[in-house]
């Protein structure tokens, strides 16, 4: 049951979107977000939707998976929509009982806010659905490399990120197992008041922490055994390389962002 949590799950595949350099994809997502936040009116939102639809189709990520990613934010979306709908000042839509409180600008703001959230989440999820976590962290490591000059420990941070990503499924599996084992001894996680339930977690948390520390220890030893000594002078087995397609895609997204800024200025 804990397995159902998706943390930007990766969908392996071999599509043009999957094949892009992960750095290209990250930069494109940033440009996409800039473009999205410049969008003001139907024309500009239409352009964004068209671009996203094209990417989704090319990536062959099932729509169901994309909508699953949206599930946790349904409430936020609904809340934003209602707030904008009722609390935007302006000309009422009509003078019928409820509609009196809804202004015309309110309707548009609500619609665009919802669109913006949905497009934002779907776009970023597309990145994590089509890029393996390892590729993502490698790409971040390189993209953030200039920050090393400012003494930001980029390599350490991305290493921590990839280790965390690597161990989340393991920990979830382990939690499942420990829960089952304690249930077999009659542990009860479902009944009782808050304090009793909190107490019932101890038999899970203690073994979980013990094993997490053990794993961390083993991992550190294993890394040292293979002469890991930090990011200094480290080379990659699979070197990331921009190809023609990457340049083309990057150029299109720069165009997209620039175009959106212009459209936004024009108020389209």
């Amino acid at each position, binding site marked *: 049951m804990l397995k159902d949590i998706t943390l930007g799950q990766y969908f392996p595949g071999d599509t043009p979107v999957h094949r892009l350099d992960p750095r290209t994809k990250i930069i494109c997502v940033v440009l996409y977000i800039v473009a999205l936040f410049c969008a003001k009116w139907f024309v500009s939102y239409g352009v964004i939707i068209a671009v996203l639809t094209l990417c989704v189709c090319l990536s062959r990520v099932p729509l169901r998976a994309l909508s699953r990613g949206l599930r946790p934010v349904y409430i936020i979306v609904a809340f934003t929509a209602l707030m904008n709908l009722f609390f935007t000042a302006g000309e009422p839509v009509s003078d019928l009982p409820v509609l009196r409180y809804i202004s015309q600008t309110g309707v548009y703001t609500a619609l665009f806010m919802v669109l913006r959230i949905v497009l934002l989440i779907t776009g970023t999820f597309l990145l994590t659905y089509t890029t393996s976590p390892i590729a993502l962290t490698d790409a971040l490591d390189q993209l953030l490399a200039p920050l090393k000059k400012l003494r930001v420990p980029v390599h350490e941070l991305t290493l921590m990120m990839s280790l965390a990503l690597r161990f989340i499924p393991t920990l979830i599996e382990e939690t499942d197992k420990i829960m089952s084992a304690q249930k077999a*001894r*009659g542990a009860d996680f479902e009944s009782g008041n808050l304090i009793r339930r909190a107490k019932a977690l*101890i*038999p899970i948390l203690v073994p979980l922490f013990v094993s997490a520390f053990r794993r961390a220890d083993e991992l550190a030893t294993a890394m040292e055994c293979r002469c890991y000594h930090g990011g200094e002078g480290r080379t990659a087995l699979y070197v990331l390389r921009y190809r023609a397609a990457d340049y083309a895609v990057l150029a299109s997204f720069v165009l997209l962002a620039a175009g959106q800024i212009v459209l936004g200025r024009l108020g389209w």
Partner: protein
Amino acid sequence: MEAILRVENLTYTYSAGTPFEHSAVEGINLTVLPGEFLGIIGHTGSGKSTLMQQLNGLLKPTAGRIYLDGRDIWSEPKEIRKVRFRVGLVFQYPEYQLFEETVYKDIAFGPTNMGLSDGEIDRRVRDAAAFVGLSEEQLFSSPFELSGGQKRRAAIAGVIAMEPEVLILDEPTAGLDPRGRDRILEQIRDYHREKGTTVILVSHSMEEIARNVDRIAVLHRGHTYMDGTPAQVFARAEELMSIGLDVPQVTKVALALREKGVDVDPSVCTVEALRQELLTLKGGGGAC
């Protein structure tokens, strides 16, 4: 005799309805008699653990039924905890579930959940500890200070202390040295003999199973492949080997002898039995 556990057409599918759908157990039928020592054997991934977790209601079958003493265990889902007290399951690598400050408290976790009186809990903890051979001193030390084998025994005691009617052990000897393995098996055997509890031992070592159990069920890709006494099962040694399972060394010796023309029963599975067999063949009496 009335069966204590009866499994009918049991099927379990992991991640049903997703692309990762996978049937780990498919249409298994199995009957366990009271007081029986049953061995379950199968290759890695054959569905042994999945089957066992359904027997005590940790996993709910996708299809099929499980009867405990003639009652469907899922007839009252609210009462499933009671089933878990009656069918005790020791997980694979149970030492990772220890969590209390002392071994004593950890063993008492199950009995405490059953709502027993303090006196009764104390008796059960001490009984269980004695069965698995934990000393008084170890009983009051931290579980994290014990060695791997001792941890394993403490964890087994934690389930034994609930005094279940059916005790299931999922690969209790995995990852132990030969001596530790023999000791744990011996303790389980003693426990079975003294208490008369029904015991189900899951393993993928034939040697281990052959020496201990009354009956063997062989699982293969989620199906019961064979079910019978050790002699019956080992008589089909070639089939066992064809699904990648080993047979006890002694059975191999007997098979080799047969090939050489010695007329021994190919299903012997202990050294003692083979010795007897050979002695009778020689015309009785005398050393081999």
